[in-house]
């Protein structure tokens, strides 16, 4: 009896031992390398704020790349990290787009989310103009991403009177604010920074089809001077950091979903003889569109093509009623975008090199993934909606896209500073939500 009991115990113990004996790998020693992550701040624009689907809302903020990086930094001595979250009651923030379905021909349809917003007021402030104000955020702050900000604007004291996303981070109310973005982000000591500024200096020119007088490309010399200033200020008290280049906006779905071919195909369903579309270029000239001209994503939902004007000429199909300039980035404007982007990126890389900073090459990264790349079994690409990389606005990223960016930052930081920040699991983050 006794020996039987012992025998059974040995068998039971053996089974438990086998069951618990999971293979393990060599432990990675956590190391911060030559950097100090105890207070990390994120400097940047909408991409840094977690903007997605044409708006800033809580889920996007929670899935911003700085939130992901900061969470991973905790493994190597990173400190607390705060983003200016909207409250749960106002979780939809500025509002955003959601996918509602597909038309019979497969064209996606979207609708704006307009409930549970954090909109405080909409006022006109002379001389700045109209501004939408959001519920103020007053807590700790590490993520300083301000949607819409250009590098050109970081030293402007009155900028918050122009941008409600910046205004909500500041204690004062518009129009009494006189705090520049650069002085605000550097007011409190920090040990590490990421800086992804400069996108809007060319992006806003491109998305407006080159047609907005207030959104012309920032002068290259001005850009270089301001970038030097920004990085000198950020590194003035010894902080280390990582900077990012400007993505190739021409490879985003915003400029590649609506094409000459797709427009012609749609027109030819009812008018098979049509074989040319007419555009108004940035110079005001009217000519037939070519494959080298880009059309912006909003043209698809504008439903203008073919609509007759007062004289009876159908929109886009006749030289006397061309597709207007704001919907077209013609090939000359596209060349300007490419030229300025290259120049800005050369500046960013050379300033980073002179300060010994890590560089996350977003231009190369998003082109690599945008052209189609398998990531843990997911083929991500720049395809609109199903590419899993870009959100519904065609410019900003999905949570999965931001996770890919976060990992590129982490790898750049680890390479430059010899740290061992672990990467995030990209597959834990979603693509575009389908109904």
């Amino acid at each position, binding site marked *: 009896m006794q020996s039987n009991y012992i025998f059974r115990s040995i068998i039971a113990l053996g089974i438990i031992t086998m069951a618990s004996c999971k293979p*393990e*790998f060599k432990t990675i020693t956590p190391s911060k390398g030559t950097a100090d992550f105890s207070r990390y701040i994120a400097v940047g624009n909408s991409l840094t704020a977690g903007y997605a689907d044409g708006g800033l809302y809580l889920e996007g903020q929670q899935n911003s790349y700085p939130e992901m990086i900061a969470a991973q930094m905790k493994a190597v001595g990173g400190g607390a990290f705060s983003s200016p979250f909207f409250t749960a009651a106002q979780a939809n923030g500025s509002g955003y787009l959601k996918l509602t379905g597909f038309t019979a021909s497969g*064209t996606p349809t979207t609708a704006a989310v307009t409930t549970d917003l954090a909109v405080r007021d909409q006022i006109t402030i002379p001389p700045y103009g109209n501004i939408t104000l959001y519920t103020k955020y007053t807590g700790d702050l590490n993520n300083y991403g301000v949607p819409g900000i250009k590098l050109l604007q970081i030293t402007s004291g009155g900028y918050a009177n122009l941008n409600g996303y910046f205004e909500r981070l500041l204690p004062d109310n518009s129009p009494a604010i006189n705090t520049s973005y650069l002085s605000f982000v550097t007011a409190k000591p920090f040990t590490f920074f990421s800086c992804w500024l400069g996108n809007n200096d060319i992006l806003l020119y491109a998305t407006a089809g080159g047609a907005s007088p207030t959104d012309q490309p920032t002068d290259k010399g001005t850009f270089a001077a301001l970038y030097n200033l920004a990085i000198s200020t950020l590194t003035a008290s010894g902080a280390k950091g990582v900077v990012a280049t400007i993505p190739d906006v021409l490879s985003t779905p915003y400029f590649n979903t609506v094409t000459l071919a797709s427009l012609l195909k749609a027109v030819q369903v009812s008018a098979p003889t049509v074989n040319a579309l007419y555009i108004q270029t940035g110079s005001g000239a009217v000519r037939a569109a070519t494959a080298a001209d880009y059309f912006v994503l909003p043209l698809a939902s504008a439903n203008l093509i073919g609509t007759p004007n007062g004289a009876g000429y159908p929109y886009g199909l006749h030289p006397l009623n061309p597709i207007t300039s704001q919907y077209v980035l013609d090939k000359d404007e596209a060349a300007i975008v490419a030229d300025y982007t290259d120049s800005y990126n050369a500046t960013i890389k050379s300033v980073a090199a002179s300060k010994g900073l890590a560089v996350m090459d977003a231009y190369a990264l998003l082109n690599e993934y945008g052209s189609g790349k*398998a990531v843990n079994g*997911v*083929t991500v690409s720049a395809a609109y909606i199903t590419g899993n990389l870009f959100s519904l606005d065609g410019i900003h990223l999905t949570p999965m896209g931001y996770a890919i960016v976060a990992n590129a930052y982490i790898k750049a930081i680890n390479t430059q500073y010899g740290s061992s920040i672990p990467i995030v699991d990209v597959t834990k983050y*979603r693509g575009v939500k389908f109904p």
Partner: protein
Amino acid sequence: MKKILLSFLLAVPILGYSQSFQVNLQGQKQIGMAGAGTGVALDEAAVFFNPGAVSFLKQNGVQGGISPILMRSSFRENGSNITEHNENKVPTPFQGYAVFGSPADRLRFGMGVYTPFGGDMYWKPDWTGKYTVTSLDLRSIYFQPTLSYKITDHIGIGAGLVYSQGHVDLKRAVPLTLNNGQSSTAELEGDTHDFGWNAGIYLETEVGITIGITHRSEVNANVKSGDATFNVPAALSATFPTKFTASLPLPGTSTLGLGFHPSDKTIIDFDVNWVQWSKYKNLAFNYNTNAAIPNSVSPRNYHDAATLRLGIQNQTTAKLALRAGVGYAFSPVNDGYVTPEVPDANRVLLSAGIGYKVTNRFNIDASFLYENVKKRNETNIESGLSGEFKTVAYIPGISLSYKW
């Protein structure tokens, strides 16, 4: 447009198996000897190991046994600090054999039921490789009626017809986000019914060495009308397929076995298996509609691979036999093609076994097999999944036999 947009989603591999999922658990005595058994006439399991040796068995008998597999796989994505483990599911391959006819006759009959291929790999539903696979449940049962004929007192031949019945159930996540933020999922499930054969020659040489040469044929497992169940967003679900066909080569295996008999009580068997995995070029799925997704072809490009097995049995007392074995299996999977449903690599096999004659007719055999699959750091060419795999398996087993 939708079709084009979706066309990449399922271009990724789905199903597979490997040396590791060639299940070599076909007899408790042989498992205790690291799976060697082709070069000797040990017991009724010769129906599987060498039909030519069946006619050399001194008694008729029937036996049945099982071998629950405790398999532990781990994965760590390169750059991550998180190690993920497979879930604890315990597949139970079984084996049953019977040998009839008069031991005095030259012609003997056998019947075998066994599970030569299978896989049970369950990762957590939200693991980092979920878009490649979350679970694979692959089972095949072979039924093999067998004839064995002793041509002379020292040469036997035998052959069996194999009827293979298979079942596959594969699950994975699909990179389309549902409205609740979760991933879509796909499940492919189907049955196969196919035929093959198993044949062998058994020789007793004058120098006392016994030799076995066998070949088990390839079986092409065809899923003719499998169920494809896609849990995808409502806006897309009408366009997704509901049925699929697929074909999976269960490779042929040639074996040379050498038996040594240093004393009346001791048997040593050395087997070399050569598995024709090179048949496994692609894994293809064809769907009943391609409105949402194209048919998929995933390259596998396996190569033929050998396994070496050395086992010893010692009849320690009249009632008690002790066994031990060691083996080495070369992986058929090339670098860049390792997939998480079969995280294969070269492996070491260590085994021990014990046999006990309760009565002259009634025997119990037990075995324990330990498989240590080498660490392998892989970046899969097709899925991009990059990280380190490590697998160990603990396989206890037991069988009962009755002889007459």
